[in-house]
């Protein structure tokens, strides 16, 4: 078990017509010993390429990968002592579960047959697949194959686990139960883990920390709640969270933000933070918007309910500035309210956008100028 360091990792692919495509651009992350790091981003952002470079399946254009005190950048995949779980599971179809799980031990160690037998036996126990050890992959369900793939990785006791969207081929229900189980196993084994997903729910729920990647560049590394409450830029703010953060393009005019529809006064403190920018993006999370009867202060705005999506415990309420009939492009945004509250489409309501909960990003660079106010982020951090 050791610390995994990515140091300015860069991957440039050369296209067929000779042009270069930068898939991963100077990514540096330190993953602590035993940490569960989730690499998340939209498809094509370079997260899988990053993982494959760590695995040794992809050559590194520049930068370094260090595992513990050795540099593994140029080592072959076979020599890195890293195990990986693939999206397609990639089980060996002609081997039984037991043979699949023994293979890595036979190839990378000189353990005796008995030792390997015991180890596979117990890992299978841990994963609840002991009864399936003599079956071939074609005789297993998707979820069972998933476990075998996992088992194949854990019997080897590698220094690092890499997981490339391992749950994406499972149905929704199985996925959420495997999510919990994967976390439990990782905690039990305490092995440094790098987990790639495009699903921000997986990122939020599973990772000790998450690293958000976009367009080959690292956007932010932090705990899930840090990334949620203190996004480093507009991309992270919009990517993390479901439904995603509402954004409004605004112009800074002294101590207020102005747009066609909104006129949002700022406190002195906030006005200082945005003083350097002309145009900013105001971000507000749907759950932070309150729907009230009448305007309580000048942070409340008259809107009309467009659509209500009931989800039982809560409702997503799509609100609209202006009148759909008369205006060409009405601006909609979403608020989440208690599932019991009665709001109906077409109803005029007042939306309160509390200044404490507002994020402000520079409109050009997207960098966060001001994040929401929290009493103490560290205390809201759940201890897992």
């Amino acid at each position: 078990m050791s610390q995994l360091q990515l140091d300015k990792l860069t991957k440039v692919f050369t296209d067929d017509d000779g042009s270069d495509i930068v898939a991963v651009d100077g990514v540096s992350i330190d993953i602590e010993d035993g940490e569960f790091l989730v690499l998340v981003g939209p498809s094509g952002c370079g997260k899988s390429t990053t993982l494959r470079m760590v695995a040794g399946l992809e050559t590194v254009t520049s930068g370094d990968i260090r595992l513990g005190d050795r540099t593994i950048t140029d080592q072959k995949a076979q020599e890195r002592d890293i195990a990986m779980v693939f999206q397609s599971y990639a089980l060996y179809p002609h081997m039984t579960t037991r043979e699949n799980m023994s293979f890595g031990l036979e190839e990378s160690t000189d353990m005796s047959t008995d030792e390997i037998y015991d180890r596979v036996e117990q890992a299978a126990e841990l994963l609840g697949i002991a009864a399936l050890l003599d079956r071939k992959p074609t005789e297993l369900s998707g979820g069972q194959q998933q476990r075998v793939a996992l088992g194949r990785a854990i019997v080897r006791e590698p220094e690092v686990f890499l997981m490339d969207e391992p749950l994406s081929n499972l149905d929704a229900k199985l996925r959420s139960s495997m999510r919990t189980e994967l976390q439990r196993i990782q905690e039990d084994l305490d092995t440094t883990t790098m987990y790639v997903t495009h699903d921000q729910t997986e990122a939020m729920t599973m990772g000790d920390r998450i690293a958000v990647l976009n367009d080959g560049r690292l956007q932010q590394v932090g705990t899930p709640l840090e990334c949620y409450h203190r996004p480093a830029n507009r991309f992270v703010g919009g990517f993390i969270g479901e439904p995603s953060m509402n954004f409004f393009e605004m112009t800074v005019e002294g101590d207020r933000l102005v747009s066609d529809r909104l006129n949002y006064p700022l406190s002195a403190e906030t006005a200082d933070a945005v003083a350097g920018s002309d145009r900013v993006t105001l971000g507000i999370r749907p759950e932070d918007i309150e729907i009230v009867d009448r305007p309580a202060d000048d942070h409340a705005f008259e809107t009309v309910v467009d659509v209500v999506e009931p989800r039982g415990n809560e409702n997503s309420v799509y609100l609209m500035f202006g009148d759909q009939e008369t205006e060409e492009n009405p601006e909609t945004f979403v608020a989440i309210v208690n599932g019991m509250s009665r709001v109906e489409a077409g109803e005029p309501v007042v939306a309160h956008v509390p200044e404490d909960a507002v994020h402000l990003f520079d409109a050009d660079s997207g960098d966060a100028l001001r994040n929401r106010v929290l009493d103490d982020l560290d205390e809201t951090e759940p201890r897992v």
Partner: protein
Amino acid sequence: MSTETDTQTEKQSRFGGLDGYRIALYTVLGLLVLFFLTPIESGLVTSLKTATAVTNTEPYLPPLSGAEFSLENYATAFDALANGVFNSLLFAIPATVVSALFGSFAAYGLTLVDWKYQVPILVLFVAGVFIPYQAVLVPLSRLYSIIDFAALLSFVWALTPLSPEYANLVELAVTHIAYGIPICTVLFRSYYTTMSEEMMEAARLDGASVRRIYRRIVFPLSTPMFAVVLIYQFTQIWNDLLFALVIVATSSSPASPVTLDLAGLGVSMQGQDFGLRMAGAFIAALPTLLVYIAFGDEFAEGVAT
């Protein structure tokens, strides 16, 4: 496509609407069966007739009376060809196995591993499938006159009842291996490109070397393709005449393969004894026919790739 009866009848009715269409279709297919089988059937019945019956009876009718029937053609043809059949098996089997192995190795090294310039090398293999062998015959003869297998393998002739002429069969085997490698490589490659890349990567991460991955993953998974390649390649090597003619030269050699003997069978009989010719043809075709009857689907697959 679906074979369910409902859709089938529905499709039928939509296509023609009447049974006449089906009848016509099956009639045509039946006539085609006749077209493809007649030469073989006619050969078979002729091979079983006496010399007089061959000229006096219809060529497609089987011998109808005991006077017309004779196995003598087969007896004569067998005497003439038995040695050739033995010789052909002697070089065709090892040449088939070795070229299939080489093909599998090469396809693995050019498909499932990672290095540059695989494709240019592969183009050279693919082009090798298509060359007309006439373009290499004279150099081949020169080569085998320079490398004297008969002398190199003198211990073999000393230890076995085989005569030094059998060195020709070693040359034939080497030749067929070399010229069989391209097609075997192409066949295996088409199969290997369908193998899961993630599986190969998983094996790599499991610590297996390139050699071990072949041994433990790729080779065991190649079994169906080996069947295809072995069958196809055996047919090709067994059926070859050109290399046999150039390397062994004459059917009077004790090492002459069966195709050479068969082509010579006509010459010595002045081409008129069709009963004997047909019997010879069937003896020479027997191994490939047996292979085809047993593994026709694999053969078709090898051909279609």
